[in-house]
């Protein structure tokens, strides 16, 4: 299944992001971001489904919760950064 990872600067920021999305009816799961995409070491991400990303970005812009970066899962399990 293809999904997006919204990279957040901290666990609490990821939790705030997930909470805002949930209130908007967009399921988002907080998880530790994959090592291969965390240049500065451990960080957290919110996982959202492919079709929910546009709505999620609208909600996050409205609430001033800017994602650090967004990655898309590739079919081989790798990650590709997506331009915002």
């Amino acid at each position: 299944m293809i999904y997006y990872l919204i990279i957040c600067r901290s666990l609490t920021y990821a939790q705030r992001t997930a909470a805002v999305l949930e209130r908007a009816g967009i399921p988002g799961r907080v998880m530790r971001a994959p090592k291969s995409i965390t240049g500065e070491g451990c960080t957290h991400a919110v996982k959202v489904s492919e079709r929910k990303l546009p709505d999620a970005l609208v909600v996050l812009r409205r609430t001033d919760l800017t994602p650090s970066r967004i990655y898309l899962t590739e079919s081989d399990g790798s990650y590709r950064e997506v331009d915002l």
Partner: protein
Amino acid sequence: MIYLDAAATTLQKPPEVRRAVMKAIETMASPGRGSHRPAMLAADTAFACRQAAAELFQVKEPDHVVFTLNATHGLNIAIHSVVHPGDTVLISGYEHNAVTRTLAALDGVTVKIAAAPLFKPDAMLRAFDRAFTKEVSAVVCTHVSNVFGYELPIADIAALCQQHQVPLIVDASQSAGCLPVHMDELGAAFIAMPGHKGLFGPQGTGLLLCGDVPAQPLLMGGTGSISAIQEMPEFLPDRLEAGTQNIAGIAGLLEGIHFIQRHGTAWILEHERSLAARAASRLSGYGVHTFVSPGMAWQIGVLSFQVTGMDCEAVAEQLGDRGIAVRAGLHCAPLAHRSAGTYTSGTVRASFSPFNTERDADTLARTVAAL
């Protein structure tokens, strides 16, 4: 045991607190240190506690709610963030050693004291106004005296700080849980509070509410974020939360905050204050000297008293022997005792919680009278 030492630590907690602590010990690991269920349960609990505290204390974002070991820890972070060598700091005459010792340990810091008599909020405000010279670069003020339950006019003092554009640090050790403590209204740089007093959390918990002033960590270490970088993260709460958090305590603290949200600070204040007033009235009837604000107008449910001809520690010891827990001496607040004129003698302090009853207040008075 009749426990009347809530100003030190609340002994009776809502039963949910104990259950939450037990559940956390059995099921939760460390927030931010893994994606497994025990770590995520811990993360959810910590976040829920930040959210509940942010709501109760009107903090703009849960990120600005930092977990500490106690109020002293929070005050140390706040003071080290705001006060620098050579600064002049203005404090009230009712501060705890958590403030005065921390300031005394800083090199070259001048401490000015806004001195005013007990239960005279207008005089206190005038004292702050007079002492607010251009050298003052920070203010540290307790919301309520831990010795006398005296509520200082913190909103007016905060307004004075805003007028002078000087950061304010509030010690809410005695007010959190029974008085409105609103970060956004006070515009404080920091508000520090314990978790184990009026918030009914376990010992070893505390909160530091952070405004927009850059915060300086006292502890460096792992935060579960940007691990490859050797400086502490710039962002809150990670910047001030190095090392594994007391998640069992935080789980208990969350339930304590829920208890306050269910009952409301107004009810808690009224209950505790009415018991203090009742005890004061009974004690006065027995000839005991009590320290009471007229109509309890500027006083919470904390009552200091002195028994003529008896050392305050002897009174507390004998009450303890008879099953009544109070605290005596200087209460780690010699400055407050100097301000009130009780430094030489000290006082006995009875402090009430929502779990005390009128019978407790009456028994205290009768037992003191019989000593």
